[in-house]
C-alpha cells in the first residue's frame, strides 16, 4: 500500500487518527433491544509527528491500549479514519496491511509474553527482516541483527543472538521487543506501557533508549503509560484519557503543571511524589486521596475504578467520581475548550467566559484543600452544588 516517501519536517504529521471509535460487541443473545457492546474508545483524535513523542495517559480500562491497537491496525476501528502520511488506511486483512505495518510498529507492555519462548533472539529479529524484505542473504541478515542489537544497547551482540527469552532479564527482553519493532524500519513506534512491567531502575534505561531513538532516528512515538512523571520526562505532548474519552491534552509541561481536568488532577495527586509534601509525606497528615469523595472511600465501592463501558455514564464519563460534578455533566460531553499554548480540556468547569481565570492555582495540593476549587466554583455561572 502506502509507500509514498515524503521528506519529513518535524511539524508534518506522520500518523493521524481522526474521530476514532471502537465498540466491542458482546456475544450476548438479547431478544429485545439493541445489541450490547463495550464502548472502549469514543472519538479519539491525535497526531503523531516525527521526532516527537506523544504520551497517552490513563488508568487501566481507559482505552489507551485499544487506541494503540487501533493505530497498529490490530483492531479495525468502528468508525473514524487513520491517515499515514495523508493517505487514508482502509485496507482490511493481514496481507493488505503489511505495507502499513512496515511503517507503524508496536512494542507491547509485557516482554515476558510478547516474545515467543520457543524461539531465539535471532529468530525474533530475522522474521521482520525477511518479511519486510530488508535482508536477502544469511550474512546480510546477521549483519542487520547485530546492528539492531547494538542500537538497543545489547552488547556484545553476538552473545545475545543465540539466547532464548528465558535467558534474558525483563529489561533485556523489552530491548529485544524494541529491536524487533525497529527491524521493520518504521517511522512510527507505538509503545504500549513499555516500562510498567520493569524495575524502576531499568525503566529509566528503556526511556532513555526510546528518547535516543526518537531524536536520532526521528521516530514518531506514541507512549502509553499511567505514570505522569514519565510522560513529562519523555514526551513533548501529553493526552489524558478516561473511560474511552479524551479529557485533556497539550504540551506535557503545561498539562502536568497546570492540570485542569479533575481527572488529571486526581492522577497527579495519586502519583508517588516524595517532594510534594516535603517531609510529611503521605504519612504525616494521614492523607486519603482527597479527590475521592469520602463516601466512596468508606464504602470502598469502586472508588478507584473506571466505570463499566458497556453502559457508561452519560455525558462526561468522569462525573460519578468527580467532586465538582454539575447536572450538565450528566447530560452531555463537554466540548473541547482551548486554553492557549496548545492546551485543551473537555470540562464544563472551564466555561468560555472564564477560561483564562478559572482554577488559577498551579499547585494541585493547594486546589485539594481550599482556595482554588472554591474560586473556580464561584467563577462558574452554571455551578450548582449538589
Amino acid at each position, binding site marked *: 500500500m502506502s509507500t509514498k516517501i515524503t521528506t519529513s519536517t518535524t511539524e508534518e504529521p506522520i500518523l493521524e487518527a481522526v474521530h476514532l471509535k471502537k465498540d466491542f460487541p458482546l456475544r450476548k443473545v438479547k431478544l429485545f433491544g439493541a445489541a450490547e457492546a463495550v464502548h472502549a474508545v469514543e472519538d479519539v483524535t491525535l497526531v503523531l509527528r516525527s521526532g516527537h513523542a506523544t504520551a497517552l495517559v490513563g488508568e487501566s480500562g481507559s482505552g489507551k491500549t485499544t487506541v494503540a491497537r487501533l493505530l497498529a491496525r490490530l483492531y479495525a476501528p468502528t468508525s473514524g479514519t487513520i491517515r499515514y502520511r495523508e493517505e487514508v488506511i482502509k485496507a482490511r486483512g493481514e496481507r493488505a496491511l503489511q505495507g502499513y505495518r512496515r511503517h507503524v510498529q508496536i512494542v507491547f507492555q509485557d516482554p515476558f509474553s510478547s516474545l515467543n519462548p520457543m524461539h531465539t533472539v535471532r529468530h525474533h529479529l530475522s522474521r521482520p527482516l525477511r518479511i519486510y524484505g530488508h535482508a536477502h542473504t544469511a550474512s546480510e541478515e546477521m549483519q542487520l541483527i547485530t546492528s539492531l542489537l547494538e542500537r538497543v544497547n545489547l552488547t556484545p551482540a553476538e552473545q545475545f543472538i543465540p539466547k532464548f527469552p528465558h535467558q534474558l532479564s525483563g529489561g533485556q527482553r523489552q530491548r529485544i521487543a524494541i529491536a524487533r519493532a525497529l527491524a521493520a524500519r518504521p517511522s512510527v513506534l507505538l509503545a504500549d506501557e513499555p516500562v510498567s512491567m520493569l524495575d524502576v531502575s531499568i525503566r*529509566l534505561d528503556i526511556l532513555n533508549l526510546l528518547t535516543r531513538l526518537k531524536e536520532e532516528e526521528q521516530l514518531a512515538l506514541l507512549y502509553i503509560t499511567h505514570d505522569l512523571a514519565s510522560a513529562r*520526562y519523555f514526551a513533548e505532548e501529553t493526552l489524558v484519557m478516561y473511560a474511552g474519552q479524551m479529557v485533556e491534552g497539550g504540551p506535557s509541561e503545561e498539562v502536568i503543571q497546570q492540570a485542569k481536568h479533575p481527572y488529571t488532577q486526581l492522577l497527579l495527586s*495519586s502519583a*508517588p511524589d516524595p517532594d510534594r509534601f516535603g517531609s510529611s509525606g503521605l*504519612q504525616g497528615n494521614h492523607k486519603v486521596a482527597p479527590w475521592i469523595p469520602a463516601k466512596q472511600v468508606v464504602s*470502598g465501592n469502586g472508588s*478507584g475504578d473506571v466505570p463499566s463501558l458497556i453502559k457508561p455514564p452519560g455525558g462526561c464519563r468522569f462525573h460519578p467520581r468527580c467532586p465538582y460534578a454539575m447536572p450538565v455533566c450528566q447530560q452531555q460531553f463537554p466540548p473541547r475548550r482551548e486554553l492557549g499554548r496548545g492546551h485543551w480540556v473537555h470540562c464544563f468547569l472551564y466555561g468560555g467566559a472564564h477560561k483564562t481565570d478559572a482554577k488559577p492555582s498551579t499547585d494541585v495540593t493547594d486546589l485539594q484543600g481550599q482556595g482554588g476549587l472554591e474560586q473556580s466554583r464561584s467563577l462558574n455561572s452554571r455551578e450548582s452544588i449538589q
Partner: protein
Amino acid sequence: MITEIRTGTLLEVKHISVDYGSSKGIVHAVNDVSFAIEQGQIFGLAGESGSGKSTLVYAIARLLQPPAVITQGQVLYYPTTRAGSESSQAGEAVDVLALNPAQLRAFRWRELSIVFQSAMNALNPVLAIGTQIIDVLRAHDPCMTRNEARSRALELLQLVGITPDRLHSYPHELSGGMRQRAIIAIALALNSKLIIMDEPTTALDVVVQRDILAQILRLRNDLGFSVIFITHDLSLLLEIADTIAIMYAGRIVEMGTREELLRAPRHPYTYGLLHSFPKLHGPSRSLRGIPGSPPDLRSIPSGCAFHPRCSFTLPACHTVVPALLPVASEKSKAPSLEALSSGHGPCVACHLYTTELNPGGPPERLESEYVN
C-alpha cells in the same frame, strides 16, 4: 496512640544469610543482614529484582523451601501481651528459626501474616472471599462458631473498605484493587502484629495504589501492627515507610529514616535509585540512571558488590566488604526525635564514609553523577 504503640522492638533479625543451591554453584541471595523492627513501624525494603528482598522476608516467615537454606543468623520475635490472649510469655524472645511445626503454625497468622504481590494468585479462585476469610479464622481458632466467624469476616471486610454484600463474591468478580483489599483483610484476620507486604501495589493503577496505601496507613494507626513493606519503587517507600533499608546483591547497603534517606542519601547506589525516577515537578533534567546491571548472585563482585557500577571507587572497594555502620547525622540538622527514640540512626555500608580509607571525606555532590 502511636507513641503508645512504639514502645519496643517487635522483631530482630541478626546476621541472617540465605543460599540457594543450584547445579551452577551456590547463589548467595541474602548475606549477613541485620535489622530490627519496632512495634507499629512501617519498615520499607527497597532494591532491584534479584537483590534478595523477597528471600529475606520469606526467611523471616520460614517460608523458604529447599534448595534455599538459611546458613546462619537468628530471627527473634518479641511477643506482646494482647487483650484476652493466653500467651503468658510476653517479653520473652521467640527464636523463629527454631520453632517446631506446631509452634510455627501458631506463630504464623497470629503473630505474622503475609500479603503477596499477586492477589489473583494468592486467592483461591473457586471459593468466595468470605469463605476464605472464615477458613482462616476457623483453622486457627476451632472454637469459633460459624456465625462468629461470619460476623468477624464482615467486620474485616468493612475494615478494608469492601461492602459486606461482597462476602459471597468470587475473586474474579472483584477488581484488582478490591482483591488486594481482600488479601489485606485475610492478613488482618487474627490481628497479626507483623504483616509482611511483598509488593502489594505493584500490579495496580496509581489511583488504586494510593487508596490501598492510605488504607494500610489508616489500619496501622488504628490497629498498631508493624509492616515490612517490600517494593522496587523507592518513590513509594519515601511516602509510606518510617524506616527504609536499601538492599543490593543480598546486603543492606543503607538504612535510615525516610527523611534521612530523602534529604541526605549516602550510598552511591541510593543516590542512583533516588535519581532513577522522573519527577513531577521542578526543572526537567535528563537522568542517567545507574550504569550497568545488577550482579549475578552466583559470582558477586569482590569487596563492595556495587563497585563495578560505582564511579567513586577507592582501592579498598575492590577487596574489602564494607560493613553497615552508623554514620553521624549532618551537623546542620538535628537528628529527628523518631530516629533517636527508635535507635535507628542512619547506617551505610560504604568505604567513602570510613575516615581511615577515605580521609578526604565523601564527595560533595554525588548527585551530579546521575543527573545531567
